[in-house]
């Protein structure tokens, strides 16, 4: 679509959502990027004004607008704090799709999303090859965190400290499961998400251990696809739709009480973004999305709210653990108490709070690759707050946050382990 009229028409469809922004500017108070740059084009009000300006032909340069719209962590802080309830995340995702449709997508992204990510089998094979050879290009740097760094890859990755691909991803060890409800009387569908499958399989194993302990049946189908958010946030609706449909084919209509994921971003995507982006997917898929989304739950919320846990008192000399609230759990879904309850289930740990536990870690998916400097500045503030809590462990319910926080702590040489709350609980079982 290189047609300006078509671009204007599609932007016009966003108009009802755009016009609800009253330009009060309250988003400035919470935007992690604006707090770094002080530039209006970086905050939701500015981006919405630009989209309106483009739709009404007061702004003529779609590329300039796209550059602003993609300088965004999609953390949802603005939407959570908006007095007039503007659905800023919906707007920005739709705008990325529209603008990418007009401007086109880079060859690299096409290759990644259309050639790889949307073909789960091939994607798994490629990464399994990569995991065999990654050791040749990387050197371990921090044993507590388990991070490495890479001189060889520094042109692409900068001075990042990486969490390597797992030697054995979750799907190789546990290709599929279908166990009946046990003592709990409940059965869940389990969607580990790409990062818990390929980088943190230990999180996936922890979830399975906890579910087994509580007598929860598990439906884990083979061949799961990515939830779609990386493609969508790059404006690739084609790959996104394909990924959503692949997952619908695996999960829709199956018999389970909840679909659980240990990834805040996957949860929030499947619960809120799938329905918001369902228009144009056909009545049958819309119906399947509505039914499935209603069942999606964060694993911490499932364990606490559905299984009714009562935490014991921490033992004397318990290790201290501090909590980072992922944006996609707290701001998007209002889940903050449950991960803390999950941690308190292990009496060998005591929870201590850090300052600004719900401030974004600065990851934002591919944002951290495209805007490495801002991402690291925001991440280092998170690191300072973690260190300030004097905890031995930091726990967070999102593998993407785990990656970013591991990078920040490792770069600073901190000896603080990064864990998922389910890992801590599973340790006690």
């Amino acid at each position, binding site marked *: 679509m290189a047609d300006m009229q078509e671009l204007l028409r599609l932007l016009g469809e966003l108009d009802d959502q755009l*016009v*609800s922004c009253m330009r009060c*500017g*309250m988003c*400035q108070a919470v935007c992690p990027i604006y707090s770094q740059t002080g*530039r209006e*084009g970086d905050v939701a009000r500015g981006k919405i004004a630009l989209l309106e300006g483009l739709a009404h032909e007061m*702004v003529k340069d779609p590329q300039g607008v796209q550059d602003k719209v993609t300088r965004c962590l999609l953390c949802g802080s603005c939407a959570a704090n908006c007095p007039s*309830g503007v659905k800023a995340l919906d707007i920005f995702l739709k705008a990325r799709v529209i603008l990418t449709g007009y401007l086109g997508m880079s060859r690299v992204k096409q290759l990644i999303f259309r050639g790889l990510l949307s073909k789960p089998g091939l994607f798994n094979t490629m990464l399994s090859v990569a995991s065999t050879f990654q050791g040749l290009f990387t050197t371990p740097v921090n044993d507590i965190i388990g991070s490495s760094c890479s001189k060889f890859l520094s042109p692409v990755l900068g001075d990042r400290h990486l969490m390597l691909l797992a030697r054995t991803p979750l799907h190789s060890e546990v290709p599929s499961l279908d166990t009946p409800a046990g003592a709990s009387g409940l059965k869940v569908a389990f969607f580990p998400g790409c990062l818990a499958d390929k980088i943190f399989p230990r999180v996936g194993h922890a979830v399975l251990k906890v579910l087994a302990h509580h007598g929860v049946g598990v439906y884990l189908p083979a061949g799961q696809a990515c939830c779609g958010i990386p493609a969508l946030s790059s404006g690739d609706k084609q790959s996104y739709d394909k990924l959503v449909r692949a997952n619908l084919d695996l999960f829709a209509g199956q018999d389970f009480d909840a679909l659980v994921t240990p990834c805040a971003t996957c949860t929030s995507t499947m619960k809120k973004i799938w329905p918001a982006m369902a228009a144009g997917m056909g009545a049958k898929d819309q119906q399947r999305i509505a039914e499935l989304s209603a069942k999606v739950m964060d694993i911490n919320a499932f364990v606490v709210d559905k299984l009714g846990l009562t935490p014991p008192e921490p033992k004397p000399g318990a290790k201290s653990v501090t909590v980072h609230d992922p944006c996609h759990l707290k701001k998007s879904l209002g889940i903050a108490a449950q991960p803390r309850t999950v941690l308190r289930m292990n009496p060998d740990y005591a929870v201590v709070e850090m300052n600004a536990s719900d401030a974004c870690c600065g990851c934002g998916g591919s944002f951290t690759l495209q805007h490495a400097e801002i991402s690291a500045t925001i991440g280092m503030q998170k690191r300072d707050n973690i260190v300030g809590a004097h905890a031995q462990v930091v726990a967070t319910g999102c593998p993407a946050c785990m990656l970013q926080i591991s990078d920040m702590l490792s770069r600073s040489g901190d000896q603080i382990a990064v864990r998922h709350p389910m890992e801590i609980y599973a340790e006690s079982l």
Partner: protein
Amino acid sequence: MNDALLKEFQALVGQENVMESEADRFSYAYDAAVLEPKMPGLVVRPTSREDMGRVVKLCNDNGLPLTVRGSGTNLSGGTIPSIGGVVVLTNALNKILEINEADLYAVVEPGVITAKFAAEVAARGLFYPPDPGSQAVSTLGGNVAENAGGLRGLKYGVTKDYVMGVDFFDVDGEIVKSGSRTVKCVTGLNLAGLMVGSEGTLGVFEKLILKLTPPPLAAKAMMAVFDDVNKACETVAAIIAAKIVPATLEFMDNFTIRTVEDFAHAGLPVEAKALLLIEVDGHPGQVAEEAEKVEAICRQLGAQRIQVAKDAAERNKVWEARRAALSALARVSPTTVLEDATVPRSKIPAMMVALEAIASKYKLTIGTFGHAGDGNLHPTILTDRRNTEEWRRVEAAIDEIFDVALGLGGTLSGEHGIGLAKSKYLEKETSRATILYSRRLKKALDPKGILNPGKIIGE
């Protein structure tokens, strides 16, 4: 903007602090007023006060219009660069230079965020009372330039009551000093007073000296429910007549009550015609006594129900309802026009009657809430600016609201400023001579007319 000039700005403040792309410039074309955006030619973000002075001079030397912008939250178009030119941002000048606990003042740069400043002051056991609705993002420079108010105006006054001094750049970039760090100061003309509320038309702030006070030791909040707007208004007058000055005395009409309840489920009485939210503060003994008196007055004047907050949580609940007012109203329709015509407080009943008549005459939805204690109501028109026919009725209704307010001896704006939005009404409230005097003053101080042209006094 020609290349040579662009390079000069870049050389002055650094390339990274000059924004020239269309997307960057368009994001400074608007503020929180419901007005058409106007794109500036350039946006400059000085990172030191010295650079700010040089930017002002460069603009003046080249006859470039200069609009100073803090966080761009004002509601009257004061930061819209109406004839283009350069938007100069203050938000990199965000240092609190001094908080003096012995002498109860603070010195700040103009880009300090109001709420951050108030929190910093509170951390030292002191109090900066002005609390405009946008305080979480607004800048102190913007507050002074707009003479911002807030919920505490009745007892504690507004921003102007806390300005002890303003140092500012004249159009040649020279620093003009006014006021001092002392409580008393009669040295020279009261130029700091001239700067307050001048909306960037007379000078560009370099730093501000602000007054601090000890905080009240105790506070008590309550909510009184009325089945009649008049009874609520009479209660306001009676409280003041009893020589009690509450820290806040807020009003919500039935439409606002219902909308807030729909949105926040705060347990508000949806059948009530009016609510008063009242807080008294001060010494604990005085607070207890005043709260009792206020409660008695509310009862005498026919309040159906009075809820006194027993603890901090209940107190918070009372104010949550008030804080939710604008958010709740804003969600009803795409466009929210928040007015602030203000009347002497005894005229609030008449103003409320007139607002209802205006709403029905122009077939508009108007929710009214606001600072009943100081006569500063916020009739809020809920509309859709894309509906041109309805928008014409909105404009006619706004004209009439101003006429009524002035007829009752009130003023066009209690706290939002005149800016672009209300400059055409200014003569109605003042006089031709007032406008001409102001224009002569402006012409003398800013011969090329570069400082925020078009604002307040037109031209």
